[in-house]
């Protein structure tokens, strides 16, 4: 036990000795959180729009008014004919063009369909989909009003459905609430998967791993000693980010912090295991970095549902997500933060983490011991 303790103390000293690592472990996560929290926003408003109004009647002006008044569109310029739109969209000065052809007002007055064209820059598919959706809503609303005003009073009332939406957990549908807890998972992967793998490989590179081997330390003591500091730093980062997420971004923590901590520890078993596993595969820090970032972290982030919903993926990819620990941790994070879920709901995810953790950590320890022999 004494040997284990001195090993842990040595690792902490080494970590502290590397003066620039500590800021990296604190400042890095904070910057990552700020970037994701403020930048990760798929909602679009004030879409820059160029106007081609060839009608120039009160009716066409009323239509344009509806677009600008909605807050979704912002006029950035005007052209006399549709031919002038191209440079606006190519150079990215405008994302949409609203084209009201000649005869719009006359057609409306005569009761004929009046045509309105909306041209979107498809190279930004997400914003354009949203922009076209807003435009269609505005025009549908306008059309319904005009139709209602034309209805003859004699027509019998027709029963209509009315959709009453109710949104749970996130009533204002803020996309930030979806993304911000994801930072926790990303930071923990960085701190408890990539950094430990590099730390172990560093000792290999410098040759101090051999020195450790000739000490009376048992392999499990060495592993535990090497990993313990990262568990502490990981838990510290978890508390730091949870504080910022709730304090700065107003994301509610509806569940229990204790449960979050316990389940985070389970998640750390999987990431630390993966980190150790990497260190047994590669020989240089550069390889460790490349391997853990490209082969593990990036696919794991993308296939975990942290950013892109799993439901939107093709079947094969959906199956692949089941072996990714972050998938379960993402469920746990959103469950505890947004839904206030307890272990009664989250136990399948916890169980999956235990299964993956035992497998990965076991394999890593076996391989590590072999590489020592």
């Amino acid at each position, binding site marked *: 036990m004494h040997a284990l303790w001195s090993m842990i103390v040595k690792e902490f000293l080494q970590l502290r000795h590397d003066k620039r*690592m500590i800021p990296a472990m604190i400042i890095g996560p904070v*910057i990552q959180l700020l970037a994701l929290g*403020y*930048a990760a*926003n*798929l*909602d679009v408003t004030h879409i820059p729009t160029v106007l081609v109004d060839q009608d120039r009647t009160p009716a066409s002006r009323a*239509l344009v008014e509806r677009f600008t008044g909605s807050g979704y569109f912002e006029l950035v310029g005007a052209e006399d004919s549709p031919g002038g739109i191209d440079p606006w*969209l*190519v*150079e990215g000065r405008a994302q949409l063009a609203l084209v009201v052809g000649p005869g719009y007002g006359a057609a409306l007055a005569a*009761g004929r*369909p*009046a*045509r*309105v*064209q*909306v*041209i979107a820059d*498809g*190279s*930004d*598919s*997400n*914003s354009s989909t949203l922009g076209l959706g807003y435009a269609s809503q505005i025009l549908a609303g306008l059309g319904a009003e005009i*139709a209602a005003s034309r209805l003859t009073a004699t027509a*019998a009332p*027709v*029963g209509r*459905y*009315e*959709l*009453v*939406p*109710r*949104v*749970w957990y*996130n009533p204002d*549908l803020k996309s*930030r*609430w*979806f993304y911000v807890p994801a930072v926790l998972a990303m930071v923990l992967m960085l701190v408890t998967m990539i950094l430990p793998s*590099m730390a172990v490989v560093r000792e290999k590179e410098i040759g101090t791993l051999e020195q450790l081997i000739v000490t009376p330390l048992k392999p499990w003591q060495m592993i535990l000693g090497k990993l313990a500091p990262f568990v502490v730093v990981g838990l510290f980062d978890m508390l730091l980010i949870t504080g910022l997420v709730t304090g700065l971004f107003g994301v509610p923590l509806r569940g229990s912090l204790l449960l979050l901590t316990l389940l985070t520890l389970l998640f750390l078993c999987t990431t630390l295991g993966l980190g150790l596993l990497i260190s047994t595969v590669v020989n240089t820090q*550069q*390889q460790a*970095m*490349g*391997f853990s970032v*490209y082969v593990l972290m*990036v696919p794991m982030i993308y*296939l975990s549902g942290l950013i*892109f*919903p799993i*439901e939107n*993926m*093709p079947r094969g990819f959906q199956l692949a997500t089941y072996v990714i620990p972050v998938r379960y941790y993402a469920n746990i994070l*959103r*469950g505890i933060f*947004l*839904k206030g879920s307890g272990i009664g709901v989250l136990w399948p995810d916890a169980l999956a983490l235990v299964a993956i953790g035992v497998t990965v950590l076991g394999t890593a320890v076996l391989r590590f011991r072999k590489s020592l022999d």
Partner: protein
Amino acid sequence: MSFKKLWSVAWKELIQASRDPLSLAMLLGVPCMMLLLYGYALNFDVRHLRLAVQDEDRSAASRELLSSFVNSTYFDLVADLPAGADLARFTERREAKAVLVIPLGTGEALAAGRTAPLQLLLDGADANTASTALAYASALVGAANAARQSEAGGRVEVAPVAYEPRVWYNPELRSTHFLVPGLIGFILMLTAVLSTALSVVREKERGTMEQLRVTSLRPAELIFGKTLPYLLISLTATVLILVAARFLFGVEVKGPYLHLFLATLVYLLGALGLGLLISSVADTQAMAFQAGSLVSMLPAIFLSGFIFPIRSMPPVLQAITYAVPARYFNVVLRGVILKGAGLESYPRDMGFLILYAVVVLGLAYVRLARKEV
């Protein structure tokens, strides 16, 4: 500066890189893997949402409405809940993203010409998916109302305002076309910055940098010699991505290849300069990796318009994006690849890219050369 000496440094670096096939494979293979991920697995196009229904009415009207939901392919019916079921529990377990409640008396209300409320309960934890689900449901209910109206009136009402959406450059609004150019910018930044920074810091760590300094090499020869191989590797990665994007996803380069090459070259020079700058600050590879991923990966994902629109960010963050070269590169690349434009359409963006490359390379040169003395 002697090109012969520069070349010999580059050759040495290339040999060193080729002795590390794992890293080399990662530099070239990872871009293709990410392309596959983005192309096949990742999108915001929501389809087949898991919908549960609680039909308390069980009338002909309610069945008709339900079948219109299922036939739309936007929703998959996963459960038919009995009256009084615990709906909150059901969405908390993520068994369904949305629950449609058709209250008792819906059919009667419709037949009597009254308004029949429908309740749609949404899991707001994933705000983006919930918004999309709400939009789909509104459209379906709107269509059902329109159908009832026309059946009752016997006269098909022509929409007074005809909405004609047109999408340029990416008519099907496929997110792959939107993501591929951004992906190139992201991967190039990551590989160029990290591999340059790590290759220099590795020599520092091993002490071989001193050996290089006592040779007759001048600073410029050493610096450019070390970056040249990574320039070539990154350019190869670009070609691989473009070829894969062309054959797998049908993303064609519509603009001139020469312009694409020039823009990529300028962008890469800036990225390599950034890598050198980091190597002049960092003493260990772990530190270089931390700093490198912080200044290259994060901004290239979150602050470049790659996924999240810059216009939706708070003003302070928007101001910061002006210092992120990927921001300009994304605009230029989307223009050349998707819109078929040439560099002459983007003088401002190209100007910023050139300025960035000059400033960063200059700073790196000054810092690295000073250490020589």
